[in-house]
């Protein structure tokens, strides 16, 4: 199937160059990455996140049964 102009996969505009300016970073999860970047003077926003139930698959399954 050929891509059409309506396809979400079609890139309509060129992305802003990642190499023309300083990187701007959003780090999700482990804060060590953000801290390392910040120490090098990179602008970074840290988003606290961790896997549901601290990665415990059984607890996550239980949560899915008890969520409303």
């Amino acid at each position, binding site marked *: 199937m050929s891509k059409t102009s309506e396809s979400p996969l079609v890139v309509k505009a060129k992305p802003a160059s990642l190499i023309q300016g300083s990187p701007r970073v959003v780090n999700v999860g482990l804060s060590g990455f953000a801290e390392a970047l910040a120490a090098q003077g990179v602008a970074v926003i840290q988003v606290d996140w961790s896997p549901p139930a601290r990665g415990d698959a059984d607890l996550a399954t239980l949560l899915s049964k*008890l969520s409303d």
Partner: protein
Amino acid sequence: MSDIRQVLREANAEAVHRMLAAEPVLIDVVAAADAIPELGEGMILHAGPPISWERMCGPMRGAVAGIAVFEGWANDLDAAAALAARGAFQFRPNHDFAAVGPMTGMTTASQPVMVVENQASGNRAFCTINEGLGKVMRFGGNDASVLTRLAWLRDVLGPALGTALRSIEGIELKSLVARGLTMGDEMHQRNVACSSLLLRSLAAALANTCGDRAILTTILSFIASNDQFFLNIAMAMGKAITDPVRDIKGASVVTAMSRNGTDFGIRVSGLGDEWFTAPVEMPDGLYFPGFSAVDANPDMGDSTIVETIGLGGFAMAAAPAVAGFVGAGAPSDAAHITHTMREITLAENPEWTIPALDYQGVPTAIDIRRVVETGIAPMINTGIAHREPGVGQVGAGVVRAPLACFESALWALGKRLGVT
């Protein structure tokens, strides 16, 4: 499955409704034995989930020995400790008797307790009178100065407060706490505003009912010199608010968080009075001159009932000065702490709002599902006791509720609802 989700949704809505609809009023001060008829000779109520003498921490043992001497069950502290080791005393949690107590939480027959009535549901809750700062029994102090102060609370202050409160038909607490939040209190480690507001409400009644000017002066000075006087009232208020939330089938809302210096325990509405416990954690805090972390006892007290109703650590944004005092970061971090606690609660209290957060209500009704899912443990502001009996308070800090309590409670709730 959809039926279970409906049960959970409706149960939690009812739990939130009962919590927010509470109308707590401080109505009286009476002897603990009058408030709690089961409280007989040799029976000692303590903070936290159930614990035996063998597993008690140092300050809890010190307080037990001291209160046994105070009640006349032993001639001295050594004799009291020996009696305790022989099983002469019956230890039960305050929470089993509609009571709460700060730190060691000693409640025995002759001590005066403040009575808070929840006039929305008619239940009452009790807490002893705050002893002040320094060497006090709640931090494990038990020398003559501590016992002498307890006797004054029993013989002078308690009866005078009771008479004054009855003469004005009590003091409504919900609006008083609302004002305290706007004046920088979070009701756990900062109670200076609410203590002052309370004294303002009580002063005329005390003057009207206390015939002895010297005694009146002593009483007014005692309350005025204790910034934490309101803490015990806030605690009784918390218990009066949360008790009607117990036993709602399917509700995943926390009704009690408490620690005995060895174990941290929680109770959950849909699981009745069962405790879910885990080893208690060490507070992270700041210490008075001459003390350090090596002197600290693990977390202790029923005072976490204030976090259970959205105050204390949950209301940190209302009291940015406390963030520095307890070592929780800069005052500017206080708002972040309250925002984070909102992620593990079901509601905001529209009557207890925080000006610095554009009058957002305090995060209310901790949901064990949200705690487990996010891994965000409730933040608790706390005092720190010396680990040895008889010394007292050595600092203040913050501590997290252990996630293991919430995980084991979630498994139990799943079992109760038939999904495991």
